[in-house]
């Protein structure tokens, strides 16, 4: 890394650490600044909307849809199903994440035409930022928004930004903005998963013989993301999901489908009662496939096992992985 970059990242890291230490209680992991964004108005609008969705779709399909599109966590309605999501390692699907951001960003650009007109980019930034806000302004979403925006800007100026640096940069900025994010599981997991995907997607894809079809691509993404994530989940939640790669491979393809049709469905719920009744059985299909597969796989005895990795082992694991990575793929 060039000296200039070293200085920038060094300073940001130092500032982030100072911010964490000064505003947080390290033993309780509670910080004095909490970002509470959803206003009362937004809350009532959301629950009106959710009420209408619940009249048209059964549980847990309705909770899944709401989680995937507008980011509300209603899974306390279906605690047994929520546990099944954890057991099969698919709970990450039900939150608004970087994927949603890139989806919305891509859709907006497509509708406007060129990705190289400054005003198109600006418009897409605004729409996705608004979406991030509506969906609760969760750390993974903001991080994805920052990353996506930086990469799109980079593309516009004809420079390919090193994506690991973009990830680290957005992580540091987030923590500076709100140090409590540092202790948020969703932030930690999404950071680890993204880093893991960035580093290991290509090697794993290559090892599996190249991206021949959608299922294989999803399998290699799942495995790549798991490399840095599974030991952390084991350390924090004391379980490991053994069926996770298989289940993820089988269900991930429905997520973009459900998100886009889900978006249309929600739009219909807001504007036209009769249209929403027509779309309900259509959005039901991918959601039902997802629910059925989760139900089936969670029934397996060994779907999820109790397995805890202790902190020293965790650190050792990361060091070894890092070492292997640098030796094999970075030279």
């Amino acid at each position, binding site marked *: 890394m060039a000296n200039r970059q070293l200085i920038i990242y060094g300073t940001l890291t130092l500032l982030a650490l100072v911010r964490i230490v000064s505003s947080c209680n390290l033993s309780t992991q509670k910080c004095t600044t909490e970002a509470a964004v959803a206003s009362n108005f937004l809350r009532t609008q959301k629950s009106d909307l959710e009420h209408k969705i*619940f*009249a*048209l*779709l*059964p*549980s*847990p*399909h309705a*909770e899944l849809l709401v989680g995937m599109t507008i980011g509300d966590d209603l899974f*306390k*309605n*279906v*605690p*047994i*199903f929520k546990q099944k999501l954890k057991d099969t390692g698919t709970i990450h699907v039900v939150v608004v994440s970087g994927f949603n951001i890139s989806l919305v960003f891509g859709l907006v650009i497509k509708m406007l035409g060129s990705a190289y007109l400054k005003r198109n980019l600006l418009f897409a930034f605004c729409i996705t930022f608004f979406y991030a806000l509506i969906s609760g302004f969760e750390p993974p979403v903001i991080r994805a928004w920052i990353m996506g925006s930086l990469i799109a800007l980079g593309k516009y100026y004809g420079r390919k930004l090193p994506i690991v640096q973009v990830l680290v940069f957005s992580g540091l900025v987030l923590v500076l903005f709100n140090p409590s994010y540092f202790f948020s599981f969703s932030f930690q997991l999404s950071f680890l998963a993204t880093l893991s995907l960035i580093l290991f997607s290509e090697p794993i894809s290559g090892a599996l013989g190249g991206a021949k079809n959608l299922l294989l691509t999803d399998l290699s993404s799942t495995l790549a993301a798991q490399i840095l994530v599974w030991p952390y989940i084991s350390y924090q939640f004391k379980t490991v999901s053994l069926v996770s790669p298989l289940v993820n491979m089988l269900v991930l*393809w*429905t997520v973009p*489908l459900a998100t886009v049709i889900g978006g249309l469905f929600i739009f219909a719920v807001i504007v036209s009662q009769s249209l929403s009744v027509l779309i*309900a*059985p259509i959005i*039901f*299909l*991918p959601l*039902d*496939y997802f*629910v*059925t597969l989760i139900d089936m796989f969670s*029934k397996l005895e060994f779907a999820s096992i109790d397995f805890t990795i202790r902190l020293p082992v965790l650190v050792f694991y990361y060091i070894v992985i890092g070492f292997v990575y640098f030796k094999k793929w970075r030279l």
Partner: protein
Amino acid sequence: MAVVKQFIFLVAFCYARFLYYSAPYGMVKLAFVDVDQGDAIYMQTVNGKKIIVDGGPNFEVDAYVSKHFLTTDCTIDLLILSHPHFDHLAGLIRVLERCVVSAVVYNQTQYESKEYADFKTAIKGVKAIVPKQGDLLTVDGVVLKVVSVGLQNDSNLNNASLVLLVKSGTYEVLLTGDLEFAGLKEIDSLELTKYIAGELEVYKAAHHGSRNGLYMPLVDQLDLQTCVISLGKNNKYGHPSPDVINYFNSRKCKIFRTDLFGSIEFLFE
């Protein structure tokens, strides 16, 4: 187009799911749905009529019911509330708000709670049946006999639980709600056993397997075969009581618990 192929696959998959969960033709299905700490019982008759007794404290019962329909529509023929405690009620409100319910049965107990008020609002416009002891409710060959309407003036709402004996052919299932000693004492066991042909195939342990739901003078008279306890994992009440488990074991009654097995399904001819 790839999306069209995906949808064709999804439709086929959805249909397969529907076939899998529907009872085999000619059989009656009765399920104790795993709703965590609570009760919810689902029945489906030979011709696909649906009965729900209690809805649990969450929306899991809705998830279970929806598996028995091909798509998002939902029709329930009989919806029964044993007593308005939250852990029997919440799911029923969800079902009422989504599904078309033909008739509701509840004993109109006096009780103040937001959920009970919501329930009463949700059933406006639905035919309400106020049961009397001895009443027989018949849905497509399945008969539900009202064994007891509970004690309406007891300070403990659990004792106001509706008790039903479900009969399909020669199979009987006794649904006891959350009835405790005071209510269980009032049940005439001689009357009850007269109505049961041979063994009592399924006995639902009253009040989630707690000690106060086990009234021996009553249960001693029943020829128990299977005992079901509907409760949540690591519940804060200490259910099931070891006394109840020991009693069932001593009676050689096969025990099935929702906290260990998930939803428990029975199929009757």
